[in-house]
């Protein structure tokens, strides 16, 4: 399984008829078992890029080659659950073939076991995010897209959820693409970091972290963060 991305441009016309360039030149490949991180300022076109990669937007220049029959799991920025279905129904709807054992284990890891029969309206944002994660993992994806899954949660909760995501990502050999603007998340979860420019987005710098995710020590993570924060992205 491999994802080959060669986008040369993407623009859209605003309501007033003006042309806006959202993406410039974005080229990279992602292999199975790898976690790519898209790192860039807010509004730089990350979500647009994800839509193209997910096959939701076909209106762009360039091409994206996805392996045939690839299963996609996606966690949107907002949880996008069906409010009229319970937590379990939401997950089963996307993943009709999931067996009870797998689902129970998944709910256990994400601490959702007590909420199976709740409706999304009864959940906090943190819980709803976890349901969205459960849904994406339940289909046993070959390609997983995580669009800022940890934003607007308090630090303790975000940290716990990040550990849960790390556990789940490590449990399966798939391509993962994470979007974040938190360097800490990027360094802890990612194998390859793609630094994006402001709009129209292009890749400024690629940082490959050779050391496997699980074996990175705290001092190493701090050192990586220090080095990366000194990158002079504005002049690249």
């Amino acid at each position, binding site marked *: 399984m491999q994802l080959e991305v060669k986008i040369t441009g993407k623009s859209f016309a605003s309501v007033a008829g003006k042309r806006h360039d959202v993406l410039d030149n974005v080229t990279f490949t992602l292999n199975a078992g790898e976690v790519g991180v898209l790192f860039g300022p807010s509004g730089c076109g990350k979500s647009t890029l994800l839509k193209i990669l997910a096959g*939701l937007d076909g209106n762009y220049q360039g091409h994206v080659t996805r392996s045939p029959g690839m299963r996609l799991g996606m966690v949107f920025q907002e949880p996008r659950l069906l409010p009229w279905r319970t937590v379990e129904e939401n997950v089963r709807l996307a993943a009709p073939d999931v067996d009870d054992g797998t689902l129970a284990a998944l709910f256990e890891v994400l601490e959702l076991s007590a909420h199976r029969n709740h409706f999304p309206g009864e959940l906090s944002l943190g819980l709803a995010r976890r349901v969205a994660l459960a849904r994406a993992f339940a289909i046993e994806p070959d390609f997983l897209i995580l669009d800022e899954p940890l934003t607007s949660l308090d630090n303790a909760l975000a940290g716990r959820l990040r550990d849960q995501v790390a556990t789940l990502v490590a449990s399966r050999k798939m391509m993962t693409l994470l979007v974040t603007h938190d360097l800490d998340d990027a360094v802890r979860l990612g194998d390859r970091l793609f630094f994006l420019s402001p709009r129209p987005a292009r890749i400024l710098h690629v940082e490959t972290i050779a050391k496997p995710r699980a074996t990175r020590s705290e001092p190493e993570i701090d050192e990586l963060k220090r080095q990366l924060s000194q990158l002079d992205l504005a002049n690249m």
Partner: protein
Amino acid sequence: MLRLLSFALFIATWWIASLVIGDAKLPAPPAVLAVLIAEARSGALFVNLGATLARVALAFTLAMAIGSAIGYLMGRVSLANRLGDPWLILLLNLPALVVIVMAYIWAGLTEVAAIAAIAINKLPTAVVTLREGARALDPALDEMATAFALPRGRAFRHVILPQLAPYIAAAARSGLSLVWKIVLVAEYLGRPNGVGFEIGVAFQLFDIPLLLAYSLSFAGVVLVIETLMVQPFETRLTRWRLRAA
């Protein structure tokens, strides 16, 4: 309890009014009740109510099914909307009487003509309501369904239909009240039975107790159907909302 009180108030007002106006124009409740019982004993009341209900059921189902489908299509596909919109405006503003008379002229004084005329009157309101519903569908959930490759049927049932449900309920509610009104006109003009026909007879004979007996029993049936069918259906549809509160 409050409902009973309001019903008692209605009877009392009626009775007092009949005393003031006089029996010839507004008979007192017991006189109407006597006619009602006589009609029920002969079976005529049930035959006529049954005929009217059957027409309502058929015309309502037909109009809801076709109207919802057209409305959904017009809300989703802009070409369908542009093609259908002039027709919709024409139908919306066409008086019920015109449709009924034309139907009877073209198709004869038949059951098909009556039901078609009633359905055509109700159709445009269902189309308009469902078109609004289809326009209000959440594109974010559509994207979710596409990203997770939900098959069309499943997506329609679990993602689209629940979003349309309040609009379908609204169309059903307003449509039913419209059909109740129009069915009597259609019967009055061209059917040999039904509540509308009986009211026509009573009008020609100036038989006010008979007229009131049929009107009130019809109103009673409408009330029963509203409380026992329409309202529980609406409550069921919004179950997840109540629990979310």
